[in-house]
């Protein structure tokens, strides 16, 4: 019996010949990533020094820090927090990446996400790096264990295979696919497992879409998601890789706990009702069409890439955002921002009345441009729990960039296919 790509990556990281689902062992990540955030990194820095005598880490190249949250107010509190991170990075010889955008995207741009590599973070959306044939795993506070010991104990996950056929229809993207999966198979369909995307539909999918898809894995209960490397991901990584890497692939006779087949052509736009991404909250866009909105947002680690900016520009070109709607478009990284600018997309958006902001996590978490009580927002952010983007009395609907942009034009949730046809 063969192994999945996930099992092969973990076997290497664990120094083992092979691993099997359910096996518990320490695994040594290639990179151990964090963004600075109050109560997380500042506490970890202190614990490392005070509890574990780590004045300076042994393998600084394995530690990665991003400054991507709390970057938009430029006040004293932000400065103090980031200074603690900068100082720790300087003292340890650990790279601190700031002003470049959302870490889960910048990790790819800087070549950390190489096929076959194992990366951990306290934040689960690091799963987005699975687009490159790497395994990204959000281990929450066990990141400290990794930082202190160099390895982290994990249960080897089983994998669920999603065989994708075809291509997304116009006005439909990876966001509709993940919500279709949650609605069809359940919010715990892949609990404690890795989602593995295969088939012609997976190969057809662009890197941006793969990243957005993998970034949302946690909402099926998965610990991560992954694509096997192919020409597209290898071409990307070869330009940016910061270390030698060895791609691994699932064996044809690898074992899966379940296999599902999905025809991408048959998917339609999905919208998630306020509360959470669970199955019962997922609706075809037609079912919520007409819901008035005051806010629209394209961005986050699961969106805001060049394809989403292009989608928004395509819909908004020569039109105006509806009166009374604030439409924030936040490219996921400054590199994407520059590309969108070079393609003329940001001018189109600005002329249409959208507000384009520099890359950060702050809009997705309600730190920048927070929602007020009574507001309704349609969002490509990763979460729509109450209070996520501001007031706990605001409501957040989630959908694709097509759905968000079309809704921003209409002032109410609409089916983007109606606007595009």
């Amino acid at each position, binding site marked *: 019996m063969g192994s999945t790509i996930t099992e092969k990556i973990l076997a290497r990281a664990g120094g083992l010949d092979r691993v099997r689902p359910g096996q*518990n062992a320490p695994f040594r990540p290639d990179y151990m990533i964090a963004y600075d955030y109050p109560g997380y990194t500042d506490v970890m820095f202190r*614990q*490392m020094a005070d*509890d*574990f*005598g*780590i*004045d*300076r*880490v*042994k*393998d600084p190249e394995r530690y990665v820090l991003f400054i991507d949250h709390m970057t938009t107010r430029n006040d004293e509190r932000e400065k103090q927090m980031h200074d603690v991170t900068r100082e720790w990075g300087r003292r340890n010889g650990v790279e601190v990446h700031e002003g470049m955008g959302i870490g889960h995207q910048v990790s790819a741009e800087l070549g950390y996400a190489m096929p076959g590599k194992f990366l951990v973070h306290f934040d*689960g959306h690091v799963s987005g790096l699975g687009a490159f044939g790497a395994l990204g795993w*959000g*281990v*929450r*506070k*066990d990141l*400290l*264990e990794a*930082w*202190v*010991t*160099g390895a982290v*104990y994990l*249960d080897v996950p089983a994998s669920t295979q999603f065989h994708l056929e075809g291509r997304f229809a116009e006005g439909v993207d990876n966001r509709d696919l993940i919500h279709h999966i949650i609605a069809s198979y359940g*919010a*715990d369909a892949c*609990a*404690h497992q890795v989602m593995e995307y295969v088939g012609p539909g997976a190969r057809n999918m662009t890197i941006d879409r793969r990243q957005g898809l993998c970034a949302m894995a*946690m909402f099926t*209960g*998965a*610990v991560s998601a992954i694509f096997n490397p192919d020409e597209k991901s290898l071409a990307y990584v070869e330009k940016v890789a910061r270390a030698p890497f060895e791609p691994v692939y699932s064996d044809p006779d690898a074992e899966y706990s379940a296999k599902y087949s999905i025809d991408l052509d048959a998917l339609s736009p999905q919208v998630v009702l306020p509360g*959470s991404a*669970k199955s*019962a909250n997922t609706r075809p866009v037609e079912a919520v069409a007409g819901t008035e909105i005051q806010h629209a947002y394209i961005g986050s680690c699961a969106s805001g890439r060049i394809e989403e900016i292009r989608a928004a520009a395509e819909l908004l070109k020569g039109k105006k955002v509806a009166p009374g709607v604030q439409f924030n478009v936040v490219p996921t990284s400054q590199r994407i921002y520059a590309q969108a600018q070079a393609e003329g997309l940001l001018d189109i958006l600005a002329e249409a009345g959208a507000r384009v902001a520099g890359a950060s996590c702050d809009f997705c978490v309600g730190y920048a441009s927070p929602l007020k009580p009574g507001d309704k927002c349609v969002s490509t952010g990763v*979460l729509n*729990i*109450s*209070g*996520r983007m501001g007031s*706990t009395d605001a409501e957040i609907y989630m959908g694709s960039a097509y759905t968000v942009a079309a809704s921003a034009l209409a002032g109410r949730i609409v089916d983007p296919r109606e606007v595009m046809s």
Partner: protein
Amino acid sequence: MSVVEPVFAGRVAWIFGDDFDVDLIIGVENIKYYDPDKLRSVCMQAFDPAFVTEVRPGDIVVGGRNFGYGHPHYPAMISLRNAGIVAVVAESYAPGFWRGELYQGMPLVTVPGISSVLQRWDDVEVDWKAATVRVARTGEVLQGTPPSAHAIEVTEAGGGLNLLRAQYGGGRAPAAAETVPAS
């Protein structure tokens, strides 16, 4: 040495449904508070305002499938722990919640089918390492899925940080540089 009793004898203080978002225990407007008095004042208010006065140290809570789904914040479970809850028994757990609470040291017992068998205030005996639940009312013993040896080790230590401290505290951890360079 374990800081956790091997068997809990207590009552079922509450039974939550499937896909339960633990932040609702205290209300999403309170998920950033750690002050014990504040947490006590909001704990389970939306479910049973008398909860914190009726619950006794040693009681447990029961969850359905995918307990902890959503984006769990730590204060909700801290509020239950402060009120006396010593363990969770659920049909299954959302991975993020499971990892986060294991780190916090809360015994998490997986017993498929549990939520339809128990009633509120049932007296139960929970052997968390064996994943068995004895129900006094019926005499039935439910068998779940025992935790891994590592999860037992973390729980017995009182959580991930305490285990690390026991293993590496006071000395130099494996990740420390061999020599401090002259500066």
